[in-house]
């Protein structure tokens, strides 16, 4: 614990941090552009210069470790002055230099109002510049459909370059040239191929990199900002939804060290234009083969007629990937009232069973636990596509490892941004790990904290249950279940999945799961199918069944539906989502649903009243109270219940005989994997950019 005197006050600061962090800790703010806690130190902006007694020149506090400072000659602790005349003058000088080549186009710059350079010039700058000559001009670069560039504004802090290399794991951006000719660009200006590229817009302290879809749409002070949770993947990134009036105009990340640090994926960030297109804003009823607008009463009447006297076994309900726990709970109660046991929240047919215990379907190590892991076994998963931010965390762990981190992959080979050993394609390789005969087992066993990550591609297949058992066996073999460490992890890709499993939205042993429901419907043995935002099933297999679709977007489900009940998207309701770790989090309503659309639980509540027996709750609070009674873990907002290792060990003791088929990829097109994303034109353009062949030519696919 070195002692420092910072601005005349003595402080004890922790070892190993830099001076700028020490000052931050004790409440002394130091201006900076290039320093960022989660990126490597560059030390090139010179904004954080401070004076240190006894040193002839000013020191860049971002690059000076608190342990490297010497005592004064009389034994006084190192004395740092951040507000001395010299330090102040240096800051003014640095800003004046930065502004020499920075255009004064703030009125037409999208960064205006949230610009670090603007703010710091106001706070630390001199009143006027003395530079009279021409400013330099830099041609703008093409960085893909998400990032708009005004490279003349760039101050070369290299945040973006460091982020892409160190966090996103893609060597895409670089600074070319030298001195005044320095420019930030990609190799030959192809678009940035990473699904985390949008984060460079947040990182850019000036308006050089701004959001292309958001260009010239709003000023930050016009926006209502609502903290919420992302549902584009199952990790539940913390987001802030910025809306004006009835429109979401952009989505930004919030800091949550346990989950997304301060990054979000491009899909989470840019899906907002999908929230206003293809929306279902009023109920529809199919009359003589055509969907026609109807009132809520008419629609409910049609449903009530259809359900009257229906045998419960001929009714099925499927919950989709974006549904909140509240509506899944309500739908489960409704199905119980109708007398149907045929309910399923696993659209993809993943063989996860809540009866085996909660730990068998959760990411038990937790996302933050990745930082402590020292070996990985990935089974049937491409985390880069299924959970980009989580993959970035694995990448960071891999990059920071002192020795080569053992990472094994069983499944389909993919570019994960880090090096791994390819162990095999299917269950056979996994079986070899489980019985300890595989050569890679030694590396995993030698690790203190190995992690097994099972993806949905390994589970969403007929022998999925056996694969899950085998994975549990493998976890046991390599010592991932020892002591306090629980290294058995299931990586979900659907935001609603963990909550659905928590709520027990699965059929009993003898009842029908998604596959069986579709089979039955195809054979004419299923009269009514209720789709709660379920769009990822094969609609052609529903046969002649009467399909009720409740959801927010006119996607596959709505096209097949006989009745459409317009619901709310995740930005339009207060919903509970459980992420892949089992952490319950709540979204908040940023805007109202469009037109006649309603929050989903109210639709189910209203429908139940029309059907004759109202569900026993009249408000969201009532519903939650009922839900928490049965599932208390959903009340533990932002917390994780300790995982139950015993459940996994019990699972591992079962016999498993999986097939031989290789593990495929779960998500074919990352940018089009859910109804909101499919409605988004930004996602469509990204999908098109990634689908064209050029990524093969450069070999730098992101």
């Amino acid at each position, binding site marked *: 614990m070195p002692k420092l005197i910072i601005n005349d006050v003595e402080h004890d600061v922790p070892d190993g941090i830099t001076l700028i962090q020490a000052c931050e800790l004790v409440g002394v703010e130091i201006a900076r552009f290039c320093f960022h806690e989660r990126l490597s130190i560059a030390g090139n902006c010179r904004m954080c210069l401070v004076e240190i007694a006894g040193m002839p020149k000013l020191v860049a506090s971002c690059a000076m470790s608190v342990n490297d400072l010497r005592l004064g000659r009389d034994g006084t602790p190192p004395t740092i002055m951040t507000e001395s005349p010299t330090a102040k003058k240096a800051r003014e000088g640095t800003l004046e230099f930065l502004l020499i080549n920075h255009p004064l186009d703030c009125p037409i710059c999208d960064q205006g109002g949230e610009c670090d350079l603007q703010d710091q010039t106001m706070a630390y700058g001199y009143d006027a510049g003395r530079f009279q000559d021409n400013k330099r001009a*830099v*041609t703008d*670069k093409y960085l893909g459909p998400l990032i708009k560039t005004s490279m003349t504004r760039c101050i070369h802090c290299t945040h973006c370059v460091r982020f892409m290399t160190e966090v996103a794991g893609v*060597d*895409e*951006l*670089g*600074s*070319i*040239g*030298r001195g005044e*000719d320095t*420019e930030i*660009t*990609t*190799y*030959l200006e192809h678009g940035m191929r990473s699904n985390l590229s949008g984060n460079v817009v947040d990182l850019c302290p000036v308006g050089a990199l701004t959001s292309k879809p958001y260009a010239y749409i709003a000023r930050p002070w016009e926006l209502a900002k609502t903290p919420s949770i992302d549902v584009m993947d199952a990790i539940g990134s913390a987001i802030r939804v910025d809306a004006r009036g009835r429109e979401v105009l952009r989505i930004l990340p919030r800091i949550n060290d346990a989950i997304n640090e301060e990054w979000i994926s491009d899909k989470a960030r840019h899906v907002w234009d999908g929230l206003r297109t293809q929306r279902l804003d009023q109920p529809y009823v199919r009359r003589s083969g055509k969907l026609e607008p109807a009132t809520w009463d008419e629609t409910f009447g049609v449903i009530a007629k259809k359900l009257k006297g229906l045998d419960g076994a001929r009714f099925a309900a499927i919950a989709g990937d974006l549904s909140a726990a509240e509506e899944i709970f309500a739908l489960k109660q409704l199905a119980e009232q109708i007398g149907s046991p045929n309910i399923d929240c696993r659209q993809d047919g993943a063989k996860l069973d809540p009866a085996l215990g909660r730990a068998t379907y959760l990411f038990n190590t937790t996302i933050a636990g990745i930082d402590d892991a020292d070996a990985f076994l990935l089974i049937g998963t491409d985390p880069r596509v299924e959970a980009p931010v989580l993959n970035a965390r694995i990448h960071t762990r891999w990059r920071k490892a002192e020795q080569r981190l053992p990472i094994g992959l069983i499944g389909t080979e993919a570019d994960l941004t880090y090096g791994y050993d390819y162990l095999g394609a299917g269950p056979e390789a996994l079986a070899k790990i489980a019985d300890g005969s595989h050569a890679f087992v030694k590396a995993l066993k030698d690790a203190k904290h190995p992690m097994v990550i099972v993806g949905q591609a390994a589970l969403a297949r007929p022998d999925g249950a056996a694969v899950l058992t085998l994975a549990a066996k493998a976890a046991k073999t390599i010592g991932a279940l020892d002591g306090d460490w629980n290294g058995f992890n299931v990586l979900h890709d659907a935001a609603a999945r963990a909550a659905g499993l928590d709520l027990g939205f699965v059929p009993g042993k003898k009842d029908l799961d998604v596959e069986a429901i579709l089979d039955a419907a195809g054979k004419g043995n299923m009269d009514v199918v209720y789709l709660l935002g379920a769009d990822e099933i094969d609609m052609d297999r529903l046969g002649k069944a009467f399909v009720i679709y409740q959801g927010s977007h006119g996607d596959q489900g709505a096209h097949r539906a006989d009745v459409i009940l317009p619901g709310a998207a995740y930005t339009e309701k207060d919903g509970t989502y459980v992420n892949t770790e089992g952490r319950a989090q709540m979204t908040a309503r940023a805007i109202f649903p469009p037109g006649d659309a309603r929050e989903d639980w109210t639709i189910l509540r209203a429908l139940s009243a029309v059907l004759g027996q109202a569900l026993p709750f009249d408000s969201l609070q009532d519903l939650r109270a009922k839900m928490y009674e049965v599932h208390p873990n959903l009340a533990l907002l932002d917390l994780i219940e300790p995982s139950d290792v015993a459940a996994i060990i019990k699972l591992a003791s079962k016999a498993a005989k999986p097939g031989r088929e290789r593990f495929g990829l779960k998500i074919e097109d990352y940018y089009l994997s859910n109804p909101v994303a499919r409605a988004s034109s930004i996602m469509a353009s990204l999908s098109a950019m990634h689908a064209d062949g050029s990524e093969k030519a*450069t070999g*730098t696919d992101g």
Partner: protein
Amino acid sequence: MSVRLAVEQPEGFAFTPANLEWAKTQIKKYPEGRQASAVLSLLWRAQEQIGGWLPEPALRYIADMLDMAYIRVYELVTFYTMFNLVPVGRYYVQVCGTTPCMLGGAEDIKDACRKHIGEKDHVSDDGMFSWTEVECLGACVNAPMAQINKYYYEDLTPKNFESILKRLRAGEDVEPGPQDGRQTSAPAGGPNTLTDPALYANDPSGPEPGSAGTTVMASEAKRPASKHEKGPR
């Protein structure tokens, strides 16, 4: 400066077998996982092989050879000014324009370049020459000076410089080094200190009294090796 690469690029690039062999020995100098350290020497060899510039396929070829991202190689070649990304003439003239040379008349040398070669950074019509201005090449005593391919030509005047260009164009050998007959960077016009012969009376190893030494020794060090190696390879 946003377009830094030549517009016309060759189809591809590959080291000659000899250069490839050499590249492999260079890469072996570095420990496993640090092969990227060889990038500068490989790029330089590629530039020599092609004739003074680096086409874009060569960047990718070397990046692939060292398992580097293309952008990292691109950063390097744009940072170091000795890498040319556009073709240069057979004789690449780099005129020093930094203060001592400028005071010594570098402007006149540049004018001579304009007259005999053409615009700066443009290859002359016959492909023999291109010229550019560079920062200090460290031969300030012999200012003004220019580097032509690998050799320094010093103590230039417009007259002797034009003669150099003419002779090179005609395919003659031109002796590098000082062009006004002085010995390396010794005082122009001969020694002006320690000239008293008495000083050397008892020293059999010293130079002949009043001698400026052998000019052969000095020029040998900078002489183009042989005729067929002259110019960019």
